[in-house]
């Protein structure tokens, strides 16, 4: 068996007790890292997730607090709405069965309608004094707080599971996507204030374009929370569609476009859909891009409806998007996005001139949350 001086001789240093102790300690550290390196790495990752989880908890609590104060301030409820808000924050929706995908869109639409009615009724009960616009804004505020609660709970789940099992691979899953999750959570945090005060947000870029086009023209309400105006543009007749503002609303633009195409027996020469789109890193906020297809985000029901009706009547669908970061989409509108509106209108006019003839009918749909944007 090796003696302590013999082991110490393997390493450089003086032949004294202190040297031996130090050498053995450092050799021990090396051995520990060799066998327990992965475990140490797991602990480091757990710690990183823990710090982010704590931040998420702060965001969640702040969101809850803001929602309660907004309801108290605007809705003037007769009793403390805390219990109702807490119940709302635990709300969930079960997606339809996709094993047999036939008809899933209609089932999903029905569920979304049920959810919408349920949310609106819940908010009405919480804030009886709020008007329609304020109700929509409060609903958006609660939805942002709900998202923060869901994010916090999912990350907490993986954190605790990783801690219990000490599995590097469980904790690694969360740790790897944590920067993106934190970015999203921060976006929802900044959205809370915008929703509470009814400020226009980046997502409303499309709605703002439509609002500019339909300004000073008569609007009629079609479908749920959607307004349409008939506007002459470049000698053509344009049906300009947007969600009804200024409350936080996205409406059902797909259904509105479908109705307009059917009312015109498909005699629509061009449909242009304008929406905000997520930019890639390196792209500038407010950059405009053109393409084809239905630029409608969300649960795809509206996108599907437009695609179906466009296919039936062979209506060409063009898209114009305004690029922005996910954080900008839900935070108060940036100047770059606002300034992009003029550029988009120019592109709409050019598209209409190039692809249609005078007297033709076109559809221009501005998609997005119209909070803080009138018409």
């Amino acid at each position, binding site marked *: 068996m090796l003696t302590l001086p013999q082991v110490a001789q393997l390493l*450089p*240093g*003086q032949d004294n007790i*202190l*040297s031996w*102790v*130090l050498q053995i*300690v*450092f050799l021990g550290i090396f051995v520990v890292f060799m066998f327990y390196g992965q475990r140490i790495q797991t602990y480091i990752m757990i*710690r990183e997730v*823990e*710090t982010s989880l*704590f*931040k998420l908890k*702060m*965001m969640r*609590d*702040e969101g809850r607090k803001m929602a309660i104060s907004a309801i108290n301030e605007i809705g003037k409820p007769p009793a403390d709405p805390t219990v109702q808000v807490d119940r709302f924050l635990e709300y969930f929706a079960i997606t339809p069965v996709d094993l047999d995908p036939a008809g899933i869109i209609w089932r999903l639409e029905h569920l979304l309608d049920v959810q919408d009615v349920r949310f609106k009724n819940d908010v009405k009960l919480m804030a009886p004094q709020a008007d329609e616009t304020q109700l929509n804004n409060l609903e958006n505020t609660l939805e942002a707080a709900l998202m923060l609660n869901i994010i916090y709970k999912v990350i907490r789940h993986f954190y605790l599971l990783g801690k219990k099992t000490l599995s590097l691979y469980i904790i690694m899953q969360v740790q790897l996507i944590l920067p993106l999750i934190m970015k999203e959570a921060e976006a929802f*945090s*900044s959205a*809370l*204030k915008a929703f509470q*005060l*009814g*400020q*226009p947000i980046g997502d409303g870029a499309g709605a*703002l374009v439509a*609002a500019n086009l339909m*300004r000073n023209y008569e609007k009629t309400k079609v479908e749920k929370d959607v307004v349409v105006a008939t506007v002459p543009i470049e000698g053509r007749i344009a049906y300009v569609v947007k969600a009804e*503002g*200024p409350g936080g609303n996205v409406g059902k633009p797909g259904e509105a476009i479908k109705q307009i195409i059917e009312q015109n027996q498909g005699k629509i020469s061009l449909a242009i859909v304008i929406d905000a789109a997520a930019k890639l*890193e*390196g792209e500038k*906020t407010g950059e405009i891009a053109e393409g084809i297809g239905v630029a409608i985000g969300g649960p795809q029901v509206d996108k599907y409806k437009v695609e179906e009706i466009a296919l039936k009547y062979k209506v060409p669908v063009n898209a114009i998007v305004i690029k922005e*970061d996910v954080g900008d989409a839900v*935070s*108060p*509108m*940036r*100047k*770059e*996005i*606002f300034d992009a509106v003029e550029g988009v209108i120019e592109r709409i006019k050019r598209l209409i001139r190039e692809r249609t003839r005078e007297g033709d009918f076109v559809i221009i749909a501005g998609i997005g949350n119209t909070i*803080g*944007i*009138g*018409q």
Partner: protein
Amino acid sequence: MEAVASMTRRVSPFLLAILMITFVLSLVSIYAGIEAYARNDYSDGSLYLTMGATTLIISTYLWLQTRKRILRFGMGMEPLNTTMECQKCGFKNVREFQRGDYIFKHTDEQCPKCNEKTMTIGSIFREVSEKEKAKEAGYG
């Protein structure tokens, strides 16, 4: 707006003991290094000093990590500007956003130039600083 909270965590006494031992050993190593330098034994002196300093830094860092931490979480955002436009004379006036403002809202405010009640909200947006924009670009 900024939320501040402290993050406390339980620290194992075993970890604290290890940290204490490492801390003491690092100090001993530094002392041995200085002593070796005094004897003009530069080779051993450098070795002990390097080992001592490294261990001291690591143990201090780990000790600091175990302490109660203050987390700050800001939801600060640039102020939002509302631009009022007179529909008659085109006069523009910029002010801070107020609750109830929305784009294309017709207000009862009087135009300071033509004295008509034709002021409409033309735009609401926030301006991001050049520094923030450069940070976003990430290069250049």
